[in-house]
């Protein structure tokens, strides 16, 4: 019997505003425990929340790129439950009137386009972080994360495979990074995905019983967890048993999902409107202002790179993976580098250096204008491509501009004809065998002689010129 999977995803994104959702505390991630806190995010008696307008703007921006309707009037609600990481023992969230709703996102899977519906995107505050490593059976709570703005993005149950889920998550992350609204760092928890998975017989209009998969630390983990869960549910149903509605956690070491909480013990969150905040009113003018400030998104940018810079689809795709890389490329071109060599250097040698040193292009010490200058020097013949390959790591390590390093290390290409002529003669004289071979018609011997010439000049000889002069000198004597 054939089964199909029905999957919906809930993604929590920590917005990278400077201050928290309802107070002025910093949202820095690496601060020592309980140093980015104030009476508001600690839930002290007498405090009131004041909404962060920037977080609302970020939420609207995400809503717009996900093709959502932006609510003209939305409100915050209280979600009530007791847990030590929840300062007020209620979370300020949005219940029935989310900031954005009814959108979609097109993702590419195996060369075809799949449209995934977006149910809603709503604002809420993050919780604190409990730690159980203090020893002596004590637990600690770090409130630095308490009140950091979160956007929860919920899809329709439109996803049919782990592959589609993975494609959606990857594209969503890319878009969020492009918008600059989140660091999207899964290890630091700024992006968290939960999957609702059920299976049903193909053609059955009714949905099967779903399970909710939590605590997955990476997209590839989500992929594996969904694959596992689909297989597990199919085998449960095939045995004639039924799937239990529950929350399941992903155990990456064993590669399985594990039951965590059944529906019977699910919370009654007793949502009601947050009386300490006035409704969020969003007028058209505000929305249009945000729309006008949206950056060019990955897909559009890729197409533009193909047409404007005559790059291949593949190159354009790689260069637009992140907004930072796309921007780096365009700045390099703007500084005078021809597009194709610029693309090759960035995707090749520079990317290798970044990968090796585990750096992001945004923190690269080579300014795009310096990379452009290096490429121009190659084009002009001032330095050889081979020299440039050695020069780039120097630039990468020091951040110095190429002309300075070239002068310091005397790397300027040797193009003086009379000097090169005399070196060519010396090389021929020193290698009578290969010279004779060449003259006897074995043209392959030229390569060896060029190599010797380059060696004699520490690689500084203009290779084209060296080639010509060697041939000229070899022919002269015969």
């Amino acid at each position, binding site marked *: 019997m054939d089964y199909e999977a029905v999957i919906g995803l809930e993604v929590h994104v920590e917005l990278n505003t400077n201050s928290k959702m309802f107070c002025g505390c910093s949202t820095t991630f690496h601060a020592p425990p309980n140093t980015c806190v104030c009476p508001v995010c600690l839930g002290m008696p007498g405090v009131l929340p004041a909404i962060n307008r920037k977080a609302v703007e970020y939420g609207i921006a995400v809503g717009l790129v996900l093709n959502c309707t932006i609510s003209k009037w939305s409100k915050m609600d209280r979600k009530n439950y007791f847990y030590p990481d929840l300062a007020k023992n209620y979370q300020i969230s949005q219940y029935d009137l989310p900031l954005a709703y009814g959108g979609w996102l097109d993702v590419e899977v195996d060369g075809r386009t799949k449209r995934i519906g977006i149910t809603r995107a709503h604002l809420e505050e993050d919780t604190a972080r409990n730690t159980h490593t203090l020893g002596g059976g004590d637990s600690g709570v770090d409130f630095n994360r308490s009140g950091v703005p979160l956007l929860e993005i919920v899809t329709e149950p439109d996803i049919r495979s782990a592959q589609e889920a993975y494609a959606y998550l990857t594209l969503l992350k890319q878009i969020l990074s492009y918008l600059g609204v989140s660091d999207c760092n899964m290890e630091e928890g700024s992006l968290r995905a939960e999957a609702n998975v059920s299976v049903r017989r193909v053609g059955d209009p009714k949905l099967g019983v779903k399970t909710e998969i939590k605590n997955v630390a990476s997209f590839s983990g989500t992929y594996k967890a969904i694959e596992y869960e689909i297989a597990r549910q199919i085998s449960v149903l095939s045995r004639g048993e039924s799937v239990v509605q529950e929350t399941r956690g992903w155990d990456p070491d064993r590669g399985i999902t594990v039951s965590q909480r059944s529906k019977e013990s699910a919370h009654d969150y007793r949502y009601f409107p947050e009386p300490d*905040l006035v409704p969020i009113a969003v007028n058209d003018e505000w929305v249009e202002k945000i729309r006008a400030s949206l950056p060019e998104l990955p897909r559009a940018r890729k197409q533009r790179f193909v047409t404007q810079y005559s790059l291949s689809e593949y190159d354009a795709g790689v260069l637009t993976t992140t907004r930072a890389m796309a921007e780096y490329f365009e700045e390099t071109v703007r500084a005078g580098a021809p597009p194709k060599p610029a693309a090759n250097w960035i995707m090749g040698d520079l990317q290798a250096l970044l990968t090796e040193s585990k750096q992001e292009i945004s923190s690269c010490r080579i300014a795009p204008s310096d990379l452009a200058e290096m490429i121009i020097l190659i084009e002009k013949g001032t330095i050889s491509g081979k020299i440039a390959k050695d020069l780039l790591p120097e630039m990468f390590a020091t951040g110095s501009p190429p002309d300075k390093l070239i002068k310091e290390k005397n790397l300027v290409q040797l193009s003086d004809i009379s000097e090169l002529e005399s070196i060519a003669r010396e090389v021929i004289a020193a290698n009578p065998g290969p010279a004779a071979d060449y003259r006897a018609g074995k043209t392959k011997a030229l390569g060896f002689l060029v190599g010797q010439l380059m060696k004699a000049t520490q690689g500084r000889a203009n290779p084209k010129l060296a080639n010509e002069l060697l041939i000229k000198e070899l022919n002269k004597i015969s």
Partner: protein
Amino acid sequence: MAKEWFRLTAHEIRDAVLGGAVSAEEVTRSFLSRIEQVDSKVCAYVDVWRDAAISRAREIDARIRKEGFRGALAGVPISIKDVLCTKQGYTTCCSKILRGYRSPFDATVVERLWEAGAIFLGKTNMDEFAMGSSTENSAVQLTRNPWNLDYVPGGSSGGSAASVAADEAACSLGSDTGGSIRQPAACCGCVGLKPTYGRVSRYGLVAFASSLDQIGPFTKDVEDCALMLGTIAGRDPRDSTSVDLPVPDYCQALNKDIKGLRVGMPREYFTEALGGEVREKIEEAIRSLEKLGAEVVEVRLPHTEYAIAVYYIICTAEASANLARFDGVRYGYRSPRATDMRQMYHLSRSEGFGPEVRRRIILGTYVLSSGYYDAYYLKAQKVRSLIRQDFVKAFEMCDVIVTPTSPTPAFRIGEKTDDPLQMYLSDIYTISVNLAAIPGLSMPCGFTKGGLPVGLQLLGKHFDEMTLLRVADAYEKNRGFDIGHPPIN
């Protein structure tokens, strides 16, 4: 014998201090010795800041001398209800669960009084978390009515009202969720104002019911009420529900006539049920207003009968969430008997909260529960907007509404403690005002034969405290009796 500065009103004290007739320190010492003399009987204060008050008074004297400081409340000694956060002393809401708690910040209203030159004498007793009408729900002590020590001072701001009535403070700050300023003001014979919701910042008020709570003053006369309101009112970015409307000079409302002003009497409030001396005094007051040229009209508030039910659904629902933060995790009481997390919550909260607070948390949790939300909370919100509409319509016919503050004068201590419903009914005339978010003022309009004050309540349109104060001032100056001082020494 030293002059009894504690007998004076805030504006009289301020004028004397700024005019050089007396130092702020001498005034403060006068109040502190009054507290020493009578508070063992009244028990209005839960904490007196003797040394801090004296050094603050010296600072004010020095600033007047050196900088020509002219604060609107320069040298005026003020008491603060224990529900307001203060860096000085403790902030406990008179609950065991917050015993010994120190707030790291001052409430916005406290900051504003401080900037105006006020001197804080200490914190006053209240029903635990402002839940009650007699101050008998305090976990700290009983406060007694200065006019008769066998009677309650009203509540929940009973300590604040008693401190002003007994001349232990020139003014006080209280909070009013369903009558907690106006009802004790009526019981103790002082002026109490609940401003329009949004007129005064709630930042630093430990929340009971966020959509109903409002901070307001207790004073000895209407002029002081105008002075206090002008000092504490205005937009505060830390309270999103505070409204960005200009704050008028409320003292402009004083010494004006009320000729042609329309005074509304709600038919639903003056029924057979309202009888006895309270009705007599209110009708007398209305005749006084007529003599001053006001025109009395009957108005209708048809949804009045639902007010108490609506109020107890909304206020308990909001309280159940607002009081969830008292869990023993970060501050406050944590049961020493707890051995795991679940017990920490259960025992700390069961042992830390008193019976009335527990009752309301349970009720509020119930009305928000899945399956009951629509029948209770949602319906209550709908009826709340009908009640609000009632007032909007009534105010098309009149400029102010006149009612009793409470159906009865103060009752005996212990008389209603076993009957919560009877206790809830004593707020019948005040709670609609919070539901409608309009301003309400209570002021004395006479005494019962037994010598207990009776309160007259004046209600106004949203943000029209000016008219309320104008009518109150005109009545006060022409009511034909002097409120005097309680027979306590």
